[in-house]
């Protein structure tokens, strides 16, 4: 099977590696320099016409533009392989595909697999989600191999939410390490952060179990103490410089906005949004969170 991968960054190349490892032929759609070691095309429209399955491995803010260029059609299956909501609109990335094209069969892919580790052929696992069983199983066939187990689920909303939350919660883990707060804080972020994700997931109709799986706890544990993870590295930098990261602030704010629309409170995510926006000092945020009213777990 020929598998289209949009994005020639480390993660795009990692997915192409997995596709090749699974016995498929990856084609990378790129802008700028052609990827080394893989066949590719700068013409995303041609890529859509050539392949049935496309994996989107570009930053969330670039997804819309890429879909406009690729213009997938009724016969395509498009799987979002990046984490987050669209920063400008707060939309689900899978919805961006259906807004910008007539492609309906969409999915999401996430889990504890980091680009460098995948390229080094270390074992990893991911979860492919789609309301369409055929999209999830096609993604599984595209990537499942002895170096990566790919599981399937129908809980697209839960997986997209877990991926977006993990990206932001990883900032807290990175920040805790940057401030040398100790490993206990990792546990607090993982459990309380995912409790926030679960609350919001419940309001959105996601499956509770998704957050205890590869997309949730699996991914968040993996990103802890890993400088390659974008969220983790942002957290460390924020702890070090006390500066701001507008892109991460926008992503966290999009999650907070989504939660507010559904009447759900996300104190930890809200604090991360404020820190990333440069409106709150990290230590003060931790102090505020620790002074919240005592409550039952």
């Amino acid at each position: 099977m020929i598998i289209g991968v949009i994005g020639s960054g480390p993660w795009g190349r990692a997915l192409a590696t997995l596709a090749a490892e699974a016995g498929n032929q990856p084609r990378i759609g790129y802008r700028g320099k052609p990827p080394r070691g893989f066949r590719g095309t700068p013409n995303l429209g041609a890529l859509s016409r050539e392949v049935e399955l496309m994996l989107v491995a570009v930053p969330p803010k670039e997804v819309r533009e890429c879909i406009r260029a690729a213009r997938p059609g009724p016969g395509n299956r498009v799987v979002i392989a990046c984490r987050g909501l669209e920063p400008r609109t707060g939309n689900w990335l899978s919805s961006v595909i259906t807004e910008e094209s007539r492609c309906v069969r969409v999915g999401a892919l996430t889990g504890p697999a980091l680009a460098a580790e995948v390229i080094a052929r270390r074992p990893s696992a991911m979860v492919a989600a789609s309301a369409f069983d055929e999209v999830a199983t096609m993604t599984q066939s595209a990537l499942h191999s002895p170096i990566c187990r790919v599981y399937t689920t129908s809980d697209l909303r839960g997986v997209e939410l877990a991926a977006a939350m993990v990206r932001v919660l990883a900032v807290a883990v990175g920040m805790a390490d940057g401030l040398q707060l100790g490993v206990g804080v990792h546990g607090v972020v993982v459990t309380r952060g995912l409790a926030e994700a679960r609350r919001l997931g419940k309001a959105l109709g996601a499956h509770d179990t998704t957050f205890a799986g590869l997309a949730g706890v699996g991914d968040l544990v993996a990103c802890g103490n890993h400088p390659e993870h974008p969220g983790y590295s942002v957290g460390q930098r924020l702890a070090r410089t006390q500066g701001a990261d507008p892109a991460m602030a926008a992503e966290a704010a999009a999650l907070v906005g989504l939660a507010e629309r559904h009447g759900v409170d996300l104190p930890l995510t809200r604090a991360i949004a404020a820190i990333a926006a440069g409106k709150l000092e990290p230590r003060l945020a931790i102090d505020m969170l620790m002074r919240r009213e005592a409550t039952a777990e």
Partner: protein
Amino acid sequence: MSLAPPRASTAEVTDSMLRRTADRVAPQSDGKLRDLLADCVYQERKRFAAMKRPFSDPDQAEQQSVERAARALRGNRNDVEDAIFSLVRRYTHEVHNEFSDRTYGFATRLLPGMLTRLLTATGPMELLSGDFDPTARLRIEGPIERIHQLARNHTLVLAPTHLSNLDSPLLGFGIYKAGLPPFIYGAGLNLFSNPAMAFFMSRLGAYTVDRRKKHKLYKTVLKDYSVDAIGRGRHSLFFPGGTRSRSGEVEPSVKKGLLGTAIAAWQEGLRHERPRPEVLVVPCTLSYALVLEADTLIEDALKDSGKSRFIITDDEFSEPRTIARFARRVLDLDASVLVRFGQPLDLLGNPVDDEGRSLDVDGTAIDRREYVCDRQGKVVADPQRDRIYTQRLADRIVQAWHSDNVPLSTHIAAFAAWHQLREARRELDTWQVVFLRDNERLVPRKKVLAAIDRLLAAIDEAAQAGRISPALLPDGPSKAEAVLDHAIDRFSRFHREPAIADARDQGARAVSISPRVCLYYANRLEHYGFEQAARGTTNTPKGSAS
């Protein structure tokens, strides 16, 4: 090419239905088949036990067939299969009305007069006389020419909103008046209880749906019948809402059973390479200034008994004289009923061009067959995928209904008055407001007028954004005055308790509101976020679930 659907005899349809049943039965385990038949026997016995005796001849025959099926359950697989085939044959005969081009032509030539008389007469004999034409005021809008063109090469599924039992005859007339080809539609047996209605509907392609039969086998027969009819190129009319909107609102969701049959028929057409496999959907929005059954329907919605009283048999529609009064007093008024045909959609809810090709977001044509075919062009069966496609189509139809909804004076005035009443009694929840006494239902006229002004501005804004259609307003020096007076005049013509009336002892200073009927008409503007405009405040009153 003729726009009329090809004819199929009862024998042909029965053969096809039995073939479909055989395909479905063959892979089933014995246990599953017995469950199917047992469900039918159980549900039917329950129905007969609740029916008044003595039974009519058809009911008696039906009961005997159910008892035969019960005996088959004690036999082997062949007995069970035979019983299922026998029931399918019986149900097909009951459902199928042999459609005849000739009869249709005859009926449509007489249609305006027939409909007039249907609405004003009390029996078939009285259809022969009458001299007034309420249907002359029926307003029909939408891309009629385009739909007409598309009907030449595509099978159309018309998907209207559903407010009243008058929808079917009025739509039948609207279809005729618009010069569109005939559409078949499933009409509840209860509608045939009105003799004039039965006479009319059976000649306009109505097939019979017995909603009392709740078992799976019967529902499967209905779906197969629909797939078969669409596959034969018969334009079909479904009410995707399933039943009349109890609350008066534009339906926020729909039932997907029959919509799914359109998708199944399309794939079947592609698989068998039929000459005209393509199916398109035309959403359609009906707007009534007044609704015949408003009193009963809102009562039902408020009791939250819509489910248990799914088939209301004793509403205004079962009283021929009430229909006649409604026709004379309401339908003869200008713009009392508006039928708006929406833009045709493919079965994924995408817009189509004049040739019926599905359009991409940038307006270029796409090949919609790719949604269901593999790269070799072969149709791939995937029931799970089809369920999601059906849901998507349902969502698009609901979206079209909302954007094609035309606010009339009665809806606008009722929405403004209802929210002013809610605002005046903020301490009460919706249900308490509904039970207010006569002297507690007064609202200053100037407050209602101000609310109408704000509401009209909000509707304008929403119409510009394509979320609703522009309001159809009466002429008058002041818009709000004209809307309120027009609505009060309309309400006074039919309902026992008008939704809004001038308060007699308050001169022109207040209006009296009948909360239930007012809520019914106000609900037509629900789901648009107009509440704040109508209330004039940002705070929400207690339990504002209306």
